[in-house]
């Protein structure tokens, strides 16, 4: 009986991890919630912790930050297992980053890195450096962020990761960071590589981010038909998969692109949709119609 439950737990976890890697976060959450119930039925504390951490990872990816953060500090206080310390610290760092608490996020990301240095898992180390890169990018320390992403990619190459997850994300982040540094052509080339890898990996989230980044890049270069094309592709994926952060960004990008094309009605339509996300600030459309904010914003800053 317990053997059956363990097998089910294992299947649910494997499938949940694949769903996370493909960007299907809602279904991954469902899997991990079922795995957590099985772990509780089995009354296995170690399995309970693993299931909770998997659920936390999926919730983070889906943007349910407060839910994802629950219980992580308690786990970190009690555990001495380096793998658990790595995952817990990494998730806490991600949760804090998504709340804009970047200094704290940096502390936990470094703790995660220390924990995984002894684990000989290249993918995890690459993930850690990618996370550090994300935090630096959110802090607008772009040179530091680029260095972290490049180091993560070097680790991936040395470790034979090839184009496996999370190389698609790391390349996409590096490309976007180069866009922020105004190195548009270089950034676009790397994002196009990431896009191809994400397509092969079936990573919908990364695909949506690549199209979003390309829309941003081409908008800044005033290649407006391409900006619109990528913006529309990104928005379609974001709506399908309920990536609300990307939806908001796409409404801005498409509104701005249509404005630059001289299509005021099209622009108004997208800015109105963006306005619905911010009912407390009724001047958004006027603001964006009047000012080009593309050079002062970071689409990947969560708050």
């Amino acid at each position, binding site marked *: 009986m317990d053997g059956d439950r363990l097998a089910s737990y294992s299947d649910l976890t494997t499938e949940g991890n694949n769903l996370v890697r493909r960007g299907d976060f809602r279904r991954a959450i469902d899997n991990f919630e079922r795995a957590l119930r099985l772990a509780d039925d089995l009354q296995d504390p170690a399995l309970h912790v693993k299931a909770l951490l998997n659920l936390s990872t999926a919730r983070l990816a889906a943007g349910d930050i407060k839910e994802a953060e629950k219980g992580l500090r308690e786990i970190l206080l009690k555990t001495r297992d380096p793998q658990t310390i790595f995952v817990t610290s990494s998730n806490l760092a991600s949760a804090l980053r998504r709340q*804009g*608490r*970047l*200094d704290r996020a940096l502390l936990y990301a470094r703790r995660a890195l220390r924990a995984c240095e002894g684990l000989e898992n290249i993918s995890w180390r690459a993930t850690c450096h990618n996370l550090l890169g994300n935090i630096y990018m959110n*802090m*607008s320390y772009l040179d530091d962020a680029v260095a972290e992403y490049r180091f993560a990619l070097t680790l991936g190459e040395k470790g034979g990761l090839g184009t496996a997850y999370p190389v698609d994300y790391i390349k996409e982040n590096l490309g976007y960071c180069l866009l*922020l540094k*105004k190195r548009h052509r270089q950034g676009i080339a790397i994002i196009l590589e990431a896009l191809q890898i994400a397509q092969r990996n079936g990573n919908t989230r990364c695909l949506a981010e690549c199209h979003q980044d390309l829309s941003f890049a081409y908008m800044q*270069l*005033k290649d407006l038909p391409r900006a619109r094309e990528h913006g529309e592709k990104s928005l379609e994926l974001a709506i399908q998969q309920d990536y609300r952060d990307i939806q*908001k*960004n796409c409404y*801005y990008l498409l509104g701005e692109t249509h*404005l*630059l*094309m*001289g299509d005021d009605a099209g622009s108004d339509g997208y800015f109105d949709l*963006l306005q619905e996300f*911010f009912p*407390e*600030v009724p*001047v*958004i459309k*006027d*603001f964006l*119609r*009047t*000012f*080009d*904010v593309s*050079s*002062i*914003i*970071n*689409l990947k*800053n*969560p*708050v």
Partner: protein
Amino acid sequence: MMTAKFKKQSLLVGSRIRSLRKDRDLTQADLAARIGIQQSDLCRMENGEYKVSLETLFRILSVFEMNIAEFFHEDLPGALRERDAEILRLFHRLSPRSQEELIDYMQFKLQFEDRLGNRKGN
């Protein structure tokens, strides 16, 4: 050349935030807490070194409870506001190369008017 222009735009927004904050007797710590960012990041935002999310940008508008004209155009003469905004809108629709050409042309016109001595304000 492009970098300098983008930097200038960031500085414009940052310096405007600083002056609005001081007008309202808010410390950096007060405003940072209300916007939900760290004080050090607000400091860098005011210096044009920090890129913000759309959320933060809109939250700043909300905190200052003002319309767009007030936020950015307070120092401009009223009669010019609409036309300046229109010029900006048209300018940003141009390709980077055309923008450069337009700047070069305006600089040429300014030099020409300087030589004639009939520049605005002279």
